[in-house]
């Protein structure tokens, strides 16, 4: 089941190879969006602290909240891809 997914996917079966490529592409595209989002968050944080250094403490919490919410998007994609890989 899941075992074929990791390393041996391409070797034996054409359909498995297609699924592996689709999974990798899906996660890669998901990571693209999340990468842009995380860059945005940290960029804005740097700007905000550069303008008003005294707000750093208050902003840190919001920054990590935003970071985790954005980062999780990749993992939704990963879980969706794994589900599709296993079920179909």
């Amino acid at each position, binding site marked *: 089941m*899941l*075992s074929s*997914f*990791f*390393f041996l996917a391409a070797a034996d079966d054409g359909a498995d190879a297609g699924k592996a490529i689709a999974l990798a592409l899906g996660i890669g595209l998901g990571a693209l969006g999340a990468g842009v989002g995380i860059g945005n968050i940290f960029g804005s944080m740097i700007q905000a602290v550069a303008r008003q250094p005294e707000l750093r403490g208050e902003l840190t*919490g919001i920054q*990590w*909240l935003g*970071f*985790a*919410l954005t*980062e*999780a998007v990749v*993992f*939704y994609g*990963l*879980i969706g891809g794994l589900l599709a890989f296993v079920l179909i």
Partner: protein
Amino acid sequence: MKRVLALVVLVYFALPSLAFAAENGDEFDPAQEWELQTWGPELKLGPIDMSINKAVAYLILGTIVSILVGIVFMRVVKSGDPDRRQAVGETIYEVAQIQVAEQGLPTKAIGRWFPYVATLMIFIWVVNMIGFIPLPLSDERFELFGVELPTLAIFAATSTLSVTLALALMTWVFTHVEGIRENGVRKYFKSWIPDVPKGMLVFIVPLEVIGQFMRLISLSVRLYANMLAGHMLILTFIGLIFLTHWAVFPVSVFFGTLFYAFEVVIVVSIQAYIFAALSAIYIGSAIEPEH
């Protein structure tokens, strides 16, 4: 003394990979770690499976350790100057109070819900952290001087969906119970309906209702997928040695260590903080709806 300790820790952390090499040979598959086998007799309570497996053992261990964290760092306070232990306890308390509870909960509800969100934070942090310490709780066995022992392996209870879903369900139920108790049934459900033109309500209200259920999914899947992906990455990089060629050893150990450090330093704490903070925000927004 410190150097000896560091060496012992290093050797201890290197042991799981040796166990992998001895056990698996070329049949390596990281997904096997998530096939939970029942330990001992099967305990069935009607349709519910109550038997003990690896994840349950990790959860029990996590519970014991998080209770100990509370007792050691916060209960036992000596009079006089605060020592380092008390400082650690106060730091934990401060993070839970200022960063988590005060961020989401309205002032009148902090007294009631602070214990819950602080418990969530400490418990999830401990369970995540235990997941990155090699412990002899694996399902695999190897023989040492004729005795069968479990191999050292890393596994987090929070990398199974059942655990995180149970935690998220608790927050979800508390959110609605608290919202109804504070505002009454009518006012609470009315607060779900936003201020939009009448015609739009047909589209908006179903979205709001779906959004309430999506919270459950997003809260549980976030923690689950983060821990699962972290463990999978580390195991995969270590496993490359046994799957390809011993010459990839430096590369795979480097990346394995890199991901290990990233997970332990950043992801573990952030996920614990996020879960607790979002629980606080959800409960707080149910107590004091914006509309």
